[in-house]
């Protein structure tokens, strides 16, 4: 198992895509730390990891709290060792037409979906540089590439991840650290359940494979990028969307 003995951190791991990613990395032998915004969420992560026979635990992390990202990396390093695989998955939506968008909706997206990617990546850098091995995988979105009405804030933050991914990949590549993004299409999760059925049906029509994606479809891509099989891939965005958008 290629990730045996390595520590992986997955943010937003209590359900959906994050949970599938945590379990995939655990299946490769990693010690997995999953984060959730609530204590009950963190407990749920600990429980499903235990059920899967995986090492690791759930921890509470509110990425928008001052100093929280740095503090959790320090705590993980102390208890488990340096983070070798960082999956920036935590994300929220605050959809609105631009003309109706509130500053709070814009700011909440940037504070949750973008800034912590910078903060967590920075905090794990020292450990990865020393180890001469590391994987940073940013969960973006197809709408960062295609745009989507009602999601100027969300798509702007997701598109920003593409640039961040490429720049950091160039910065740190010489130290054996790869930085990639995975851009999910329309995945069947709580986030997309909020959409009206009519809109869903229309979206599925635009998917070449004719179905919604599953969290596992994203986790498989992340699992590949985290493994040694992907050691020559960096600065890339892997689109996992069933052919909804072809780059």
């Amino acid at each position: 198992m290629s990730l045996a003995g390595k520590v992986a951190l997955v943010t937003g791991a209590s359900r959906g895509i994050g949970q599938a990613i945590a379990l995939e990395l655990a299946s490769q032998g990693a010690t997995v730390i999953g984060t959730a915004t609530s204590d009950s969420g963190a407990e749920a992560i600990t429980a499903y990891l235990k059920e899967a026979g995986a090492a690791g635990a759930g921890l509470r992390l509110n990425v928008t709290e001052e100093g929280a990202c740095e503090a959790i990396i320090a705590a993980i390093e102390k208890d488990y060792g340096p983070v070798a695989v960082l999956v920036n998955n935590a994300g929220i939506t605050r959809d609105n037409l631009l003309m109706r968008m509130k500053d709070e909706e814009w700011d909440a997206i940037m504070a949750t979906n973008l800034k912590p990617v910078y903060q967590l990546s920075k905090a794990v850098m020292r450990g990865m540089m020393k180890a001469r091995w590391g994987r940073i995988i940013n969960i973006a979105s197809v709408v960062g590439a295609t745009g989507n009405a009602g999601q100027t804030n969300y798509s702007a933050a997701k598109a920003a991840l593409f640039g961040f991914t490429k720049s950091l990949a160039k910065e740190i590549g010489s130290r054996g650290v790869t930085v990639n993004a995975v851009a999910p299409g329309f995945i069947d999760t709580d986030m997309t359940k909020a959409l009206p059925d009519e809109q869903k049906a229309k979206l599925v029509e635009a998917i070449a494979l004719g179905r919604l994606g599953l969290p596992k479809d994203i986790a498989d891509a992340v699992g590949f990028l985290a493994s040694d099989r992907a050691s020559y891939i960096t600065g890339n965005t892997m689109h996992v969307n069933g052919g909804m958008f072809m780059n």
Partner: protein
Amino acid sequence: MENIEQRVKKIVAEQLGVPETDVKIESSFVNDLGADSLDTVELVMALEEEFECEIPDEEAEKITTVQQAVDYVSANLSK
């Protein structure tokens, strides 16, 4: 115990992959020893570990030569 200058030079040589004999007290990491900006960050990390101290970013940016590293460590090290 080796003195601070010798310890610093040894770390510089190791980190930058240059022979220890090339590392002079006046050597600049970037101009003389071929370091890039990321190398200098790593060098500071290595100094922090060797001397068990934390070098703040604003101080680290000023350390560009062997002499400056020796001076910083000498001034900020209790042992």
